[in-house]
C-alpha cells in the first residue's frame, strides 16, 4: 500500500518555491528532435494485394477446368436481358465508388 506522506509546512514552502515553468518553445524543440513517424510500407502492401489477387485468379482458372466458368459467364451475360446488364453495371459501379470513397477517407485520416 502506498504510504501517505504527512503534510509538513516545509513541503508547502518547497512547492511554493518552485514556480510553474513556462513552456517557452521547449515542447516544440523536443518535437523537432523526435525521429520521423513510422510510415506504413505502402509498397509491401501493394505487393501482397497484387500477389493474392494473381494467386486467386490462377487457382480459380485451374480449378474451374481451364476457365470454363469464364465462358459460362460470358454466355450468360450475352443472353441476359438489357435491364439485367444495366442493373449489374450499376451495382458494380456503386460498389467500386463506395470502395474508392472508403480508401480516400482512410488516406485523409492517416495524413
Amino acid at each position, binding site marked *: 500500500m*502506498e504510504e501517505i*506522506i504527512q503534510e509538513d509546512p*516545509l513541503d508547502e*514552502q518547497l512547492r511554493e518555491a*518552485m514556480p510553474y515553468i513556462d513552456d517557452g518553445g*521547449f515542447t516544440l524543440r523536443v*518535437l523537432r*528532435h*523526435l*525521429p520521423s513517424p513510422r510510415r506504413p510500407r505502402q509498397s509491401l502492401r501493394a505487393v501482397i494485394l497484387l500477389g493474392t489477387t494473381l494467386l486467386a485468379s490462377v487457382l480459380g482458372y485451374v480449378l474451374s477446368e481451364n476457365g470454363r466458368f469464364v465462358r459460362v459467364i460470358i454466355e450468360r451475360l450475352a443472353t441476359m436481358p438489357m435491364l439485367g446488364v444495366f442493373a449489374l453495371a450499376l451495382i458494380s459501379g456503386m460498389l467500386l465508388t463506395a470502395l474508392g470513397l472508403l480508401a480516400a477517407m482512410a488516406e485523409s485520416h492517416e495524413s
Partner: protein
Amino acid sequence: MELTDANLIARVIVEDDQHAFGELVRRHQSSVRGLLRQLTRTDIALADDLAQEAFLRAYKNIRSFRGEAKFSTWLYRIAYNCFREDARRRKELVGIDDAQWESESDPQAADPALRHDLMYALSLLPLHERTAILLCCQNGLSHEEAARVLDIPLGTVKTNVLRGREKLKRALAAWGSS
C-alpha cells in the same frame, strides 16, 4: 473533453501520434525541468538539455511503459538517469570522487542575497538528500515512488527525506534567529 495521459500514451503507441506526445510534453515539462534545475543547481541551460534528452528517451521507449506507475514517476526516473549519466561524465572529466561531488556546494548560489532563501538551503544539501526532498516534498511522490525513481531501497529514501528535512529546518531556523 481533455484526454488523460493514458489516452495520449495509447495514441503514441498505436498511431505513432507525435501531437499526442507533444501534449504529454506540454503537461509534464514544468515539473521535469523544475526537478532537473534543482538537481543541476539552477544551471538552466544544462537542465533544459537534460529534460529534452529525457523526453526523447521517453518517446523512444514509450512501449516499455506498462502503466504500473504514474507517467510522471516514469518520466522522473528517466530524467534522473539522464542527470546521473551526465554527472558521471562530468566527474570523469574533472576527476573528483563521489563523496566530494555529492557534498559540493553550489558556486552559483554563493550570492549573499540568497543566503536566507529556502532554495539556497536546499542546494546545500548533499545530492541524495536533496533529490529525495525534491521528489517527495516538492513533487509529491510517495516514498515508494521515489524509491522506484532513484532505484534505491525504501528505507534509504525515508532516511534521506528525514535527514534532509531536519537539515533544512535547522538552516532556516538558524537564519531566522540571526
